[in-house]
C-alpha cells in the first residue's frame, strides 16, 4: 500500500516536469525545470518499486540502475546546455 502511494507520488513529479517543458518559453528555464523535476520523480518511483518488491536480487539490480542514472542525467543536461551557450543560442526573456 505504501509502495503504491510512493509510486503515484513519483508519477506526479514527472507530470509536473512534463508541464514545465510546455509552460516556459525560454530554453534555459525549460532545461532547468525538466531535468530537476524529472530526476526527483525518477528517484521516488524507483524507491516505491523497491518498497513494493522487498529486498531481493530484483531490487538490487534496480538500485544499480538508479545509481547509474543519477550520475548520468545531470551530466547530459549540462552538456546540452553548455553546447547551446557556446554556440550562441539566444532565447526570449522569462
Amino acid at each position, binding site marked *: 500500500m505504501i509502495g503504491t502511494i510512493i509510486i503515484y507520488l513519483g508519477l506526479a513529479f514527472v507530470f509536473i516536469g512534463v508541464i514545465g517543458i510546455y509552460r516556459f*518559453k*525560454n*530554453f534555459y528555464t525549460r532545461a532547468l525545470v525538466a531535468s530537476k523535476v524529472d530526476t526527483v520523480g525518477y528517484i521516488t518511483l524507483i524507491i516505491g518499486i523497491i518498497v513494493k518488491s522487498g529486498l531481493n536480487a530484483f531490487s538490487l539490480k534496480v538500485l544499480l540502475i538508479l545509481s547509474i542514472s543519477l550520475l548520468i542525467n545531470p551530466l547530459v543536461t549540462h552538456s546540452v546546455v553548455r553546447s547551446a551557450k557556446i*554556440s*550562441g*543560442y*539566444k*532565447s*526570449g*526573456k522569462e
Partner: protein
Amino acid sequence: MLEIALILIVITSITAIQTRYLRQAVLYLGLFSMAISFVYLMYGAPDVALAEAIIGSTLSTILFIVALQKYKIYTIYYALQADELEENGQLSIHKQQLIKTLEKFCTKQELEAQIIYSTEPLEHIIAQHQYALILVEKNDVITIYAHPENYKFDSLKQFLEIEAHPRYHYEFLKVEEDIL
C-alpha cells in the same frame, strides 16, 4: 498502448525523411530506434530489443555524425542589438524572411546553414570566431561581410540580385586581412 508506439514510429520515420536539416534527422532516428526497440520488447523478443538499442541509439548515431563532418557547414553570424529580440525569442517578419532567403541559397549550393544570433560588436566577432558571413543591419541597409577565403561569395551576390527583399537593400564587403 502498443498502437501508440506504432503510430509514433510512423510519424518519426516520415519526419526524418522530410526534414531539411540533416542534424535533426539524426535526432529523429534516435527517437525512432527507441520506439521500435520498445515495440520489440512488447512482442516478447528482449534479445532483439537489446541489439536494436545498442546499434540504433549509439553506433548509427556516431556513424551518421562522423559522416556529417564531410558535409560543409556555412556559418552565418547575425549581429543584433541586445533589445532587438522580441518576446518569445521571435524575430520580426522581415528578418525571418531574410534568413529564409539565405537558407534557400545554402540548400541550393548543398551547404548546411548554421545561423548564430550574436550581440557582440563586429570587431570581436571577426577576431574571435570562425565565420563565413556576418550580417549587420543599419537603416534598412544590410551590410554583408564575407570571410577572405569565402569562394561562394560571387554566387551569393548573383542569387541576392534575383531574390530581392521588399524592405532591405544589400551592400557587399569583403573583410581584408589587415583588420585582423
